[in-house]
């Protein structure tokens, strides 16, 4: 069992947990027998592409040096069938159609943030669902993905969760072969990513406030600058949203500082881009810190969407 409240919070977010497990198939800093990394695939969570009709943000991009690309999206549909299950599956999956507009140039623009480039040969769209969800709606999923030309993977909840292809064919023979039999995710795969773009925003906000307040208390600092905030969020372990581009991450911090100033009224401005905790004791008294955090927790109800 986990020891800190931190784990309790992130565990509630099934989307990020699933993304973290997927990431473990491509993550190069772990040693694990069963990885798509071994057959030459790399991957990054939360990519972003500028389409003509706005931005497109699949959950994951996977690619190998031959230019074989998968745009992967996690389909968050409840395992228990809702009344309008057919419409729901159709509408969720049809969102993925626009990934066809992602060009080589857009991919390289994103990869350049990680000092990488790619000559794209082939692109595939993949939907990832939980095994339970898939089994409850098997026929519907099959017909929709066939119609849309999407490849479907499922993730099976077991001691070591298994990601497996359930519909469609990959162009790469090796990738096809591995996913037909299924790939076990890294046992601690849940730990790679705690926060993603689609994490319930109340969880991110609560963690943001907790980190900022804890940092200021530890450093006995009442005042801080906006520039420091990003540093605090990505330097505190585990890093928060470090994998998304900084300018996008900053938008989250702007909103949370705004809310600390105006909604929660815990901060005040001391200058342009400089803020301080309204009362000195917020950072000097551990009791106050705890009281503030529990109030914020009651207000935001993180993890209870």
């Amino acid at each position, binding site marked *: 069992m986990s020891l800190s409240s931190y784990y309790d919070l992130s565990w509630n977010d099934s989307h990020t947990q699933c993304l973290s497990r997927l990431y473990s198939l491509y993550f190069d800093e772990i040693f694990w027998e069963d990885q798509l990394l071994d057959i030459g695939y790399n991957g990054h969570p939360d990519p972003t592409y500028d389409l003509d009709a706005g931005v497109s943000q699949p959950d994951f991009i996977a690619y190998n040096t031959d230019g074989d690309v998968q745009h992967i999206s996690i389909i968050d549909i409840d395992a228990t069938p809702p009344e309008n299950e057919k419409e729901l599956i159709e509408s969720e999956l049809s969102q993925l159609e626009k990934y066809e507009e992602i060009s080589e140039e857009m991919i390289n623009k994103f990869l350049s943030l990680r000092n990488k480039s790619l000559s794209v040969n082939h692109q595939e769209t993949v939907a990832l669902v939980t095994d339970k969800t898939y089994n409850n709606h098997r026929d519907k999923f099959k017909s929709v993905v066939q119609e849309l030309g999407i490849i479907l993977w499922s993730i099976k909840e077991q001691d070591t969760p298994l990601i497996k292809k359930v519909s469609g064919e990959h162009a790469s023979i090796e990738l096809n072969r591995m996913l037909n039999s299924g790939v076990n995710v890294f046992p601690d795969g849940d730990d790679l990513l705690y926060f993603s773009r689609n994490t319930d925003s109340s969880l991110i906000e609560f963690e943001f406030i907790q980190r900022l307040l804890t940092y200021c208390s530890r450093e006995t600092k009442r005042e801080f600058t906006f520039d420091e905030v990003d540093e605090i969020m990505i330097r505190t372990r585990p890093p928060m949203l470090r994998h998304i581009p900084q300018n996008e991450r900053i938008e989250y911090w*702007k909103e949370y500082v*705004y809310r600390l*100033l105006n909604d929660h009224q815990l901060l005040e*401005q*001391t200058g*342009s*881009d*400089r803020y301080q905790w309204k009362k000195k004791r917020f950072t000097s008294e551990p009791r106050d810190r705890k009281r503030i955090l529990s109030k914020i927790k009651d207000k935001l109800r993180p993890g209870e969407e």
Partner: protein
Amino acid sequence: MTVQFELPRKTLDNILDGLATVITGDSDSTLDLNFVAEESDVIHIYVKKFNNIQILHTIRDGGEIKISVDEPRRSVFSSQILRDVVKKSKQERLKLKLVDDNFRIQVGDQWFTQPLEIELPLYHGSEFQERIENDSMEQIASLNREHTIEALSMMSVISPEFGCEIKENKLWIRVSDTVNGSGDVMQQLESPPDIGDSTFEYETNPVLSYLNTTTSDNIDLYLSTDGALKLITERGDHSSSLMLARRIVNR
């Protein structure tokens, strides 16, 4: 050793209010008013806080204001009681006399057989301070007081400090905060100032409270090369100025 002066109550009230905003401000320390009476029948009343800020009011013997100085003198005093007494008065004009170490306030009320006269001893907690004179300042622009107050008070919602930027013969007053937003207002200058292109930051509050306690239509804005800001307002026999050092932040 007598200094006598007579002026509209409203003028004295404004002077004391304006100085008080600097004295009380946000710090715990109380500052005293410095008072200088010159032989040429001129009185300076001012407050200095560290070397960052000075508000100076100068009144001269003339139309609305009557001053007679027997002998030049300088004093420093706590203004709290004086300010409260002035506030309670309903008179159009007030007569004040500084005799030795006492302020004598006379109201010209004719109703009582003997008009009210109040005597206030002078107390002070700090030493007399010489006023700052900065001759190296250059006049940049003359601004409309009302519109400047409006612009600055709207900007103060976004950030408690503003920037003054001179660029290509234009004066920009700006505010910007990553979280709250940004804004600016521009005044075209008649000729490029000698100071050249420059940018300085200032705290908004002292400027706003100063402008709110003056009554002239226009304010003259001066800058020095090291970033000191001076605002001057003139109204008849009464002129006043705010001098403010640029805000330097250790990041």
